[in-house]
Each structure stands twice: as C-alpha cells, then as structure tokens.
C-alpha cells in the first residue's frame, strides 16, 4: 500500500517538475495580440485574406505585415474587432457576395456532348472545353459547392450552382475554383444582375440556351442609365439598382434576376427579409 502511494506520487512529482521545466525552457514567445486576433477570427480557414488559414493571418496582422481589414468573411464586426485590438482604424469596404452568372441548367441550356467522368468542373473543362455548348455557362458538376467553406452553394436538381447571399461571406474560393469564370464578386446591395456569361451573338445564344442574354437591347432601351451592352452581353450599372428593376420583367429570355425577389428556378433558397438585402417597398 505504502509503496504504491510513494511510487505513484513520486512519478507524479517527477513529471510535474519535468513539465514545469520544459514549459519555461521551451516557451515560445507569442504576441498576445496574435492570440487575441485569432480569437475573434471566424476560424473557417477559408483563405479569403490571402493567407493559409486564420492563424497565419493572425500572425501577419500582429506583426504589422497585413492590413487589419482583410477578414471579409467575418464581416464588419470581425474587422472592427481586429482593428480595435491592433489600435488602428478599420477600413471598411462594401460587403461583397459571389454571384453565378448563369441560369442555363440542363433543361434550359444544350450540351454539345455527353460527359462521362468524375464530377469535377475543371476536369470536364479539360475535355473539349466542357460539355455545355455555351462557352461561358455553368457546367453544373458542383466543384464550387464542394469547395465552399461556408456551405453557401447548392446545386439545383437540373445542375445549376446557386449561391445563398446570406451565407456567402465573400471569400472568393468559388471564384478561383470555377474553370469558366461564371462566378464573380458583386456588391451585396446590388440585387439585380443579368445572369448570363456568354459573349456570343444573340443568334448563337438562342441556339443553345433559352435563358441567355441575346443582346436585344430591350433592357437598355427601357432604363438607359442602368444597362449597357458589353460585347453582346447586357450588364447592370449597380448605381441604378432601383431603376434597373423596371427592365426585369421586360427581358424576353428572363435572364435578368432580382435577388431581392427570388433566386433562379430550381433553387431552394429564399430571398432574405432583412435590410440591406431587401429593397424598401
């Protein structure tokens, strides 16, 4: 009995001394601000800041190497907290979301071939530039959905990527992953977009897609200040987001989408009810 107490206790004492010694001897100096910054970051390791993971960014901020306002996924709140810890002024930028500029799912857009292989858009794109006849359309194999660290992207049953504007933090991972550059960053408060990525002439677009922009200029004629036609593709001038609404219903191919009213067909997402997502009636 007594031996057991002594031996176990002895081992415990020895270990405690060793640990205490090691923690002093091998202590790594960490800037307390680095820990504080890491604390307020989201911890998603999404890479939106350009650093590999949150801890790398926290170290860069603490050492003064990086700006305090790069954690866009964390939103205003996080950026303000980081700026506060570092004692600097937060440089706020307008929040951005990723938008899929395509509505051509498998029913609406034609394929030039039937693809057999792994469900990966980049791999499909390597085979004769992807199965979609449209050179810019969403391939629908879900590479962006799988890479999204925030679960903000869904694939509709007919194979179209749709991004949830409330869940999207603007980390740009999907933008980098999309082999056809269908996904681009847009200001969050710009709700009206021409969801087409084809610069082909109208007649060509009509042949392969029922919801593509055919560059008919109707939107531009309706609201000249809000739309321009850039190389056979209509583009919204976001400064006139409110005004642009008037042309949405007039688009003959229904390729202008107002995210304040609803998501593209097939999506399970619903428009948010809070400002600034919602237009005041």
């Amino acid at each position, binding site marked *: 009995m007594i031996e057991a107490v002594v031996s176990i206790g002895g081992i415990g004492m020895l270990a405690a001394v060793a640990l205490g010694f090691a923690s002093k001897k091998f202590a790594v100096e960490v800037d307390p601000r680095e820990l504080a910054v890491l604390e307020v970051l989201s911890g998603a390791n999404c890479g939106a800041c350009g650093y590999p993971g949150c801890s790398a960014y926290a170290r860069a901020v603490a050492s003064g190497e990086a700006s305090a306002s790069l954690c866009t996924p964390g939103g205003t709140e996080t950026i303000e907290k980081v700026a506060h810890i570092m004692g600097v002024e937060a440089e706020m930028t307008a929040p951005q979301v990723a938008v899929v500029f395509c509505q051509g799912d498998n029913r609406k857009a034609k394929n030039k071939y039937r693809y057999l292989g792994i469900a990966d858009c*980049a*791999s499909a794109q390597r085979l004769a530039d992807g199965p979609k006849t449209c050179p810019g359309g969403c391939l629908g194999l879900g590479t962006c959905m799988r890479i999204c660290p925030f679960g903000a992207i869904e694939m509709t049953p007919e194979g179209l990527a749709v991004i949830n504007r409330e869940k999207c933090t603007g980390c740009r991972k999907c933008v980098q992953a999309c082999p056809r550059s269908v996904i681009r960053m847009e200001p969050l408060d710009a709700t009206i977009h021409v969801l087409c990525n084809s610069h082909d002439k109208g007649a060509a677009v009509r042949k392969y897609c029922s919801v593509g922009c055919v560059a008919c200029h109707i939107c531009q004629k309706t609201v000249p200040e809000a739309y321009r036609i850039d190389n056979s593709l209509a583009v919204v001038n976001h400064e006139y987001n409110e005004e642009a609404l008037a042309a949405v219903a007039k688009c003959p191919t229904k390729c202008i989408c107002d995210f304040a009213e609803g998501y593209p067909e097939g999506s399970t997402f619903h428009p948010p009810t809070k400002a600034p997502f919602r237009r005041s009636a």
Partner: protein
Amino acid sequence: MKFKTFSGGLHPPDNKQWSAHKAIEDCPIPPQLVIPLSQHIGLPAEACVKAGDRVKKGQTIGRAKGFVSVPVHASTSGEVISVEPRPHPSGRNLLAVVIVPDGTDEWLDGVEPARCEDLSPDQMRERIRDAGVVGMGGATFPAHVKLSPPAEKPIDTLILNGVECEPYLTADHRLMLEQPQAVFDGIAVMRKILGVSKVFIGIEANKPDAIAMMEKFSGDTGVEVVALAVKFPQGAEKQLIKAITGREVPSGGLPMDVGLVVQNVGTAVAIHNAVMLGRPLIERICTVTGPGVFEPKNLRVRVGTPLKHLVEHCGGLSGDPAKIIMGGPMMGMTQLSLEVPATRGTSGLLLFRESDLSLHPEGPCIRCGRCVRVCPARLLPTTIAAYARLERIDEAESYGAMDCIECGCCTYTCPAAIPLVQLIRSGKAAILARRRKG
C-alpha cells in the same frame, strides 16, 4: 518461348483481326481539306498562305516557329479558301488552312531525291525538319529534336517501335509488311545522324508476319528484331526500352538520359520519304475500325481529310456513333464530331455505338489492388487518385503522380469503375499549375 517485357501491364482483347489482314488502301481526296497549323507538340506553325492563294502538293503553308516546331504542308494541290479556326482533334477550334483541291494533285517543283551517302547529318536533320516529320506513334513530337541529342548525352542505341500494343490498331503492322524497305532506309538515315550501330526493332509477338518480314530485310544490316510479350503498354517508350535493353529511364528523364533514341516505324518511313525522296509528311496510315464502322480498313490518309470521309471510304457507319475516338481505345482522344480532320498523329479512328460502351456507375474502391499490379510505372493509382480527388496535391505528388504515363491500365481493370486516369490527370494539372505559380 518467353518474350521480353516489363513489369505490370495487361492484355485487353486486341480486336486486331478486323483489319490486320487488310492491305493499305488510298483514301480518295476529299472535296475539302482542313489542315490544322498545330499538329505537333510545341508551338503551332505560322500560316504563310492566305485565302485565294493557289498551292501545290507539298508546298509549305505554315512555317515552323521555334526549334520545337515543324512546318505544315499542303497535302494536295488546290486553292486556299480560308485560314480560320476549325474543329481540331483537341476539341477546340484552332487555326487551320482550308484547301479546296483542284483534282490534279500536282507536286511542288523542285522536289529532289537524294542519296543517304551524299548528305551530312545536319543536312539530313534539316530535311527532316523541313518535311515536318513528327513522331507517328501518336505523340507527334518533332523528329528532328529527338535526333539532335546534346553532346553530353551520348547515344549508343536506336530502338524502332513497331510494337503497336493499342487494341484495334493495325496501321504500323501493315506498314511493316508493305513498306519494309522504306523502314530500313529510314533506319539507315537515323543511324548516320546519330552515329550508332546498335539498332533494335521491337514488335509484339502477335505479329509473326511482321517479325518475319523485318527479319528478312534486316539481312546483314545488323538490325536486331526483338519479339516482345503481347501486353499493353509494351509500346510505351520507357517500357519498351526496359523490355529490350533492361535500362530504366530515370523518373522525369528522357530516353537520351540512358543513351537511347526511340522512333516509331511510321516515323522511320516518314524520315525515308523526307531525306531520300524530299517529300514532306502529308499523309499517314490510319486504321479505321471499331464496331461502329461498316468495313474496317487500313487507309493511307492525307493530312487534313475530315474523319467522315475516312468512314465513307470504309462503307459508312454501322449505327449511330456514340464515341468517336482518335487513336486507340486505351489512350486515344474522344472527338466531338466526324468533321474533325485527320492529322499527322491520327494512327486510328475508332467508332463505338452506344451498345458497345461500358457505362458502369462508379463505386467505392474495394482496395483490390488490381490497379497496383497492372501499373507499368509501378505506382499506387488508387492512392494517387484518392488524393487528387481531395485536392491534396502534395501527397499526390509524393506518391508519384507525375510519373503516371496515363496508359489507362488501372481504369481498364478497376472493378469499381473509378476513372483513375482522369483523377490522376486532374492531380497532375493541379501540380503543374502550382509549379507555374512558383
């Protein structure tokens, strides 16, 4: 008898019986030739004709741009109607010279034959390059580059690749039977250029007539004909070298690193045509076969002939083509349509109908290890593919993704129908993209 070979590999049904006995036929001149300016590895040629120009057979229509590049020639006489992007075997629309033949098929003046003895190695290389000769096995690497080894890499052996291990294809087989003298003349040219005496011709043992023919012509030339085990990919450069000489090309290296040059038998004939006859590479032998073709044949095809004319000359289609493959079934490329033209690398055209395809859905890997046993590069395909799928690039690279020769044995044998080669390719693409970024 035990034939020489390498480790790994497998033997898919070769289906060569459909066309192996058919003598090569000339495919007629089509109403329009579409000659791509990019038919080789390296920079595309630069067009030097314009719409409205009249060209003669053998006339240069695209100039080589840089050392690793070759010129492109008109494959018959006629009028250039446009130089514009056209469907290309790569699946994209790439710049091509479109020629409407005038029917006279008139050669360019000044094409002069020469004798091997009268030319220096440099003159020969020049003639080979000007003739646009590329590797005819399908890789289309410019032949003059392979024949210009740097001084610090001495070459002691030349290997001629007459293996033709791809199922269905019989083009090289027929070529060896019908133009044996041209093959040996090509060998003589390459021997002189490289200054080597040791020459092997590797042929799979399933072509005894070709082996006999080559042996007959080898006579006292000192060329050794080697019968090789019937196994895919016996004709892959590094595996062929291993089988014949026992040398292993180091990972990431080239055959010249172990003192070897390997050329396809078709390339030897093209070299003979270029050096001795002064004729550019404007036609090749192509096997048109597969269950989707009415009567499989071996055709002598002019570069730029749209594939549909090849099929027409073979009695047409025997059903809707569901897969159009340029090359063999193991390593060939699927094509979008029969409008695509045959190029210098088109060793075969293989058509499958929907009912001929195996469309099994992919299942989970059961770790059966078949892919490991058949991999001629001795990799772990399933492991690399799994890492590539997870985009774990470092691990994929450390498991040797870049050493994969994409022969397709692993995918062929996988009971779970996992597209291993495609996954490994995507991993390779990611590794290369990262290397470029630095």
